[in-house]
C-alpha cells in the first residue's frame, strides 16, 4: 500500500497487522518513507499467511495505491506481482497503465472512490480505513477482529473517534461486497491463539531486559533510536537507568563505567556511531569489560542512506580497532532472533568479559513480525565473580586456562584493583615488557576458543546432500531461506548456511556444511563483498567453485534475485564476478 503524507498508510498497515496477529496469522510488515522529514509519502508491505513467513515477498498480491505520484518513489520497495490485484483511487490525476507496472493479463485492476467514500462516510481523511474495508470484503480478512482493532486503536481515548473510524471501514466493506468476488484469491486460514507482534528493535530491547540489562546509555541515530526510546519507557519501570548522552563516545564510555561497576550495560547505535566507538571498544577489549553494542546497519559509507538497509558494517564490527583487539560479533537475522541474539550477546559478554557487537540492520530492526510468545525463553548467564578464597589474594587479570579471570564488583572488600587500557600484568598494573604483552594478548584471545566451542550458533536450511551451498548472514536469511525452499520444491539440491556468530566463526560447522557441496554461492548486500572477504580470512574458497552475489544495499534482497542465481548456477551459466579490491 502506498500513499501521500496524510493518507494514513502506516496506520492502515498497522491495524491490519495487529488484527492478523490477534487471530494467530503470521505477519511480516515493512515500511518505507520519502525524504521529507515528516508528512511525506509512505509505503508499507504487509504479508499475511497461516504458513511461516521469512520475508516480504517479491511482489505484492494486492497493491493499494492512493497516489501514483508517490508510488513511483518506492520503486523496489513496493512492487506488485505480475498477476496482482491493484486497487487505486479513481480520483488520482496521475494515470498509469498495466504495462507501466509490468502486470500480466491475469492481473485485476479496480479503480475505486477511496477519498470520496471516506468523506461521504462522515470520516474525512480515512481513505485508509475505507481501503481496509475493501480489502476485507475482497480477500476475506478477519472482519470482526479488524473492527475490534479499529475501535481499540481509535477509540482508546474518545469512543466517538473510534465509531467514526468504524464508519469508514464499514463503507469500504460495503463497497467491496459490490465488487466481483475473487474466491481463488481469498486468504485461507484458521484463527488461532494470538501471536506477539513487534519490531526487531523492540525484540532487541526486550532481549536486553530479559538478559538482565539495567543500564543503557545511548545517543539517537536512525535506524536504532527505537531501542533507546523503548528502553527509556521501560528501564525506569524495572529499576534500571537510561542516560541519553552527549555523543556516542560518552555513551560507550558510560556503558563501560556501568559495567566496571558491576551492571549489565549496553548501548545501541548505527554505523556512524559504531565508528565513533572504535577507540572505546578497544578499551573494553583490553580492560576486559563486558558490554553489548547493538549496531543497526544502514546504507553507508558515511551518513550514506540512513533509512535503508545494507550489510556493510561487517568489517567495522569484525576488524575495526587499533591493535590486536578480540571482540565477539553476532548477527540477528529476523525479529524473534533479535531477542535471542541479544540475550546471547549479554551471556557471552558477561561470561567472557569481552565486548560483544550485535549486528542488526534496518530491515530486521524496523519490520514487524509475529511469533509465538512461548518462544521468548532463553537461559541467562552471569559474570564470574571471585570466590571468598580468591579475594584473599586477588589478581584481577589472573591467568586461567580459558583466559577468563574472576571480576570483582566495586563494594567488595578485598576485590580492589585498578584497571587500565595500558598493557598490564595480572594485577592490572601497567607494563610494557614484550613477554607480558605476548602473554596478555594470548590470554585475551584465548577466550575466543571456548566462546566458539560453546556457541556454534548457525542455521542450516535445505537437504543434507546439497550440491549448491549458499552462505549468507543477517537479514539476507529471509530471502535466501525462501529461495532455498523454492529450489528444493523444484527438486534442486540447494542448502544454506547462516551463522549467527560471525566472529569468532563456527568454522567447523561451516566446513561440515561445505563437505560435498559442489558450488558455493555467497550472498550479501555489500558492494565490496565484505562477508565473502571475511570468510576468506579463515576459509579456503576455491575460485573455481565459489560464486559471489553481492550488491549495494538500499533495496532489500529479493527471493527472485537469489532464485536467479541458483538457476544460473545450476545451468552452468553463472559468470564469475570479479570482486573489487
Amino acid at each position: 500500500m502506498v500513499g501521500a503524507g496524510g493518507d494514513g498508510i502506516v496506520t492502515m498497515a498497522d491495524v491490519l497487522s495487529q488484527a492478523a496477529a490477534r487471530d494467530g496469522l503470521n505477519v511480516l510488515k515493512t515500511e518505507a518513507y520519502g525524504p521529507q522529514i515528516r508528512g511525506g509519502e509512505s509505503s508499507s508491505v504487509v504479508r499475511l499467511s497461516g504458513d511461516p513467513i521469512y520475508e516480504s515477498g517479491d511482489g505484492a498480491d494486492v497493491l493499494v495505491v492512493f497516489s501514483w505520484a508517490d508510488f513511483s518513489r518506492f520503486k523496489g520497495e513496493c512492487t506488485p506481482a505480475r498477476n496482482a490485484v491493484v486497487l487505486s483511487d479513481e480520483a488520482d490525476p496521475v494515470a498509469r497503465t498495466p504495462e507501466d507496472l509490468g502486470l500480466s493479463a491475469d492481473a485485476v485492476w479496480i479503480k475505486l472512490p477511496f477519498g470520496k467514500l471516506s468523506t461521504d462516510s462522515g470520516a474525512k481523511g480515512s481513505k485508509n480505513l475505507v481501503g481496509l474495508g475493501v480489502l476485507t470484503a475482497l480477500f476475506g480478512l478477519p472482519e470482526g477482529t479488524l473492527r475490534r482493532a479499529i475501535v481499540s486503536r481509535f477509540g482508546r481515548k474518545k469512543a466517538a473517534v473510534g465509531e467514526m473510524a468504524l464508519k469508514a471501514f464499514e463503507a469500504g466493506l460495503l463497497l467491496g461486497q459490490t465488487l466481483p468476488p475473487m474466491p481463488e484469491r481469498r486468504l485461507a486460514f484458521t484463527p488461532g491463539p494470538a501471536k506477539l507482534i513487534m519490531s526487531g528493535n523492540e525484540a532487541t530491547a526486550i532481549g536486553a531486559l530479559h538478559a538482565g540489562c539495567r543500564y543503557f546509555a545511548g545517543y539517537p541515530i536512525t535506524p536504532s533510536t527505537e531501542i533507546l526510546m523503548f528502553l527509556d519507557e521501560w528501564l525506569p519501570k524495572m529499576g534500571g537507568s537510561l542516560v541519553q548522552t552527549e555523543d556516542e563516545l560518552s555513551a560507550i564510555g558510560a556503558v563501560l563505567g556501568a559495567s566496571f561497576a558491576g551492571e549489565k550495560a549496553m548501548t545501541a547505535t548505527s554505523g556512524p556511531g559504531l565508528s565513533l566507538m572504535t577507540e572505546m571498544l578497544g578499551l573494553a577489549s583490553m580492560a576486559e569489560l563486558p558490554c553489548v553494542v547493538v549496531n543497526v546497519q544502514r546504507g553507508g559509507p558515511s551518513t550514506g542512506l540512513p533509512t535503508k538497509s545494507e550489510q556493510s558494517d561487517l568489517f567495522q564490527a569484525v576488524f575495526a580497532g587499533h591493535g590486536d583487539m578480540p571482540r565477539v560479533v553476532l548477527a540477528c537475522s529476523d525479529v524473534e532472533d533479535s531477542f535471542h541474539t541479544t540475550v546471547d550477546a549479554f551471556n557471552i559478554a558477561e561470561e567472557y568479559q569481552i565486548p560483544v557487537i550485535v549486528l542488526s540492520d534496518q530491515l530486521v530492526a524496523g519490520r514487524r513480525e509475529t511469533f509465538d510468545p512461548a518462544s521468548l525463553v532463553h537461559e541467562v548467564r552471569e559474570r564470574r565473580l571471585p570466590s571468598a578464597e580468591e579475594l584473599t589474594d586477588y589478581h584481577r587479570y589472573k591467568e586461567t586456562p580459558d583466559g577468563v579471570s574472576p571480576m570483582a564488583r566495586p563494594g567488595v572488600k578485598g576485590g580492589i584493583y585498578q584497571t587500565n587500557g595500558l598493557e598490564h600484568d595480572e594485577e592490572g598494573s601497567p607494563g610494557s615488557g614484550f613477554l607480558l604483552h605476548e602473554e596478555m594478548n594470548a590470554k585475551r584471545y584465548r577466550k575466543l576458543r571456548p566462546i566458539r566451542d560453546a556457541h556454534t550458533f548457525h542455521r542450516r536450511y535445505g537437504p543434507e546432500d546439497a550440491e549448491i551451498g549458499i552462505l549468507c548472514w543477517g537479514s539476507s536469511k529471509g530471502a535466501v531461506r525462501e529461495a532455498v525452499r523454492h529450489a528444493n520444491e523444484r527438486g534442486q539440491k540447494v542448502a544454506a548456511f547462516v551463522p549467527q556468530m560471525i566472529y569468532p566463526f563456527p568454522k567447523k560447522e561451516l566446513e561440515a556444511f561445505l563437505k560435498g557441496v559442489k558450488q558455493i554461492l555467497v550472498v550479501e548486500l555489500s558492494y565490496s563483498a565484505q562477508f565473502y572477504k571475511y570468510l576468506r580470512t579463515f576459509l579456503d574458497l576455491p575460485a573455481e567453485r565459489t560464486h559471489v552475489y553481492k550488491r549495494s544495499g538500499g533495496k532489500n534482497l529479493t527471493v527472485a534475485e537469489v532464485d536467479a542465481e541458483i538457476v544460473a548456477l545450476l545451468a552452468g551459466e553463472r559468470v564469475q564476478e570479479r570482486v573489487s579490491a
Partner: protein
Amino acid sequence: MSEAATLPEFKPSDYKTDLKPVWCAGCGDFGVLTGLYRALTELQVKPWETVVVSGIGCSSRLPGYVDTFGVNSLHGRALPLAAGVKVARPDLTVIAVGGDGDGLAIGGNHFLHAARRNLDVSYILMDNEIYGLTKGQAAPTTPAGDKTKSTHYGNPEPAVDPCELAISVGATWVGRAFSGDLKGTVELMVKALRHKGFAFLNVMSPCVTWRGDDQFKSLKAKQRQLPENHDASSRAAALVYTRESEIVTTGVLFDVSEPTLLDRLATVKVNALAGKPQSTVADIIKSFQPSF
C-alpha cells in the same frame, strides 16, 4: 571534625598502593596525590566503596597509586566512565581525575555535559598548563603567546579558565587549589567530596619538566586566598575570580545546591512507576500481544 574523637579506621597509607609513581621528581601531581590520601582519610571513605577514574596523561596515572577501585581509561574519557559508574551504582563514591588536556581539550564536551547534568561526581583537574605526558605541547590552559613544543613561535590561542567554564556550564561546586599548598588542597578536596552534585576542583599542579621550576615559584607568589566574605552562592561573585593573570585565587569560588542527576533520575523512576510495582519482562511481552 567529630571523626577525630574516635580512632579512625583508615590511615593515609591505607589508600596507597605499592606502585611507585612514574612522575618526574618535583612534579606537582605528588602534592595532589598526597592531598587525596589525606582527604580520603579525613572522610574515612571505605576504599572498596570508592572508584577513582581518570583519562590518559601524567596526572591520569593517579588511580594506579590510590588503593581504591580505579580505572585509568582513555584520553579525555574519565567523565563518561565516571558517569556510568555513578549512575549504575549510586552507593559508590566516584572521583574523576586527570589533566588539563585530558579534561578540557579532548574531554571538553564531557566536562560541559557532566557539569550541566550536575553529575554526582567530584572532578579533580591537575592543571599544569601543558601536555606533560606527550612532552610539552600547548594545552587549552597554556597562556597565549607561550612557547611550547607545539607553539614554537608563541601560542596563538587564548587560554581557558577551567573554573569559569565550570561555573558557566552548570557545575554546582567549583574550587581552585594549588598543589604546592597541601593543607589548602586537602581542605578543598574534602569539601568537593562532600558536595552533592558535580564538584569541580582545579588544582594548579606544576609540570617541572615542561614548564620549569618557575611555575612552582610563580604560583606560590601569586596565590591568594579568597576573601572571607566571598559569596560562593553568587555566580557573578564567583566569576570575579576567573581569568586572573597576576594572581591565583584559591578557595571555594562557587557552591550552590541544585537537584543532581541522581536526584532527577530517581524522580524519573518514581514517575515511571506511578505508584505501581516494578514491571517484569513478562509485563512487557504481554503488551505486545494484541488483546482487543
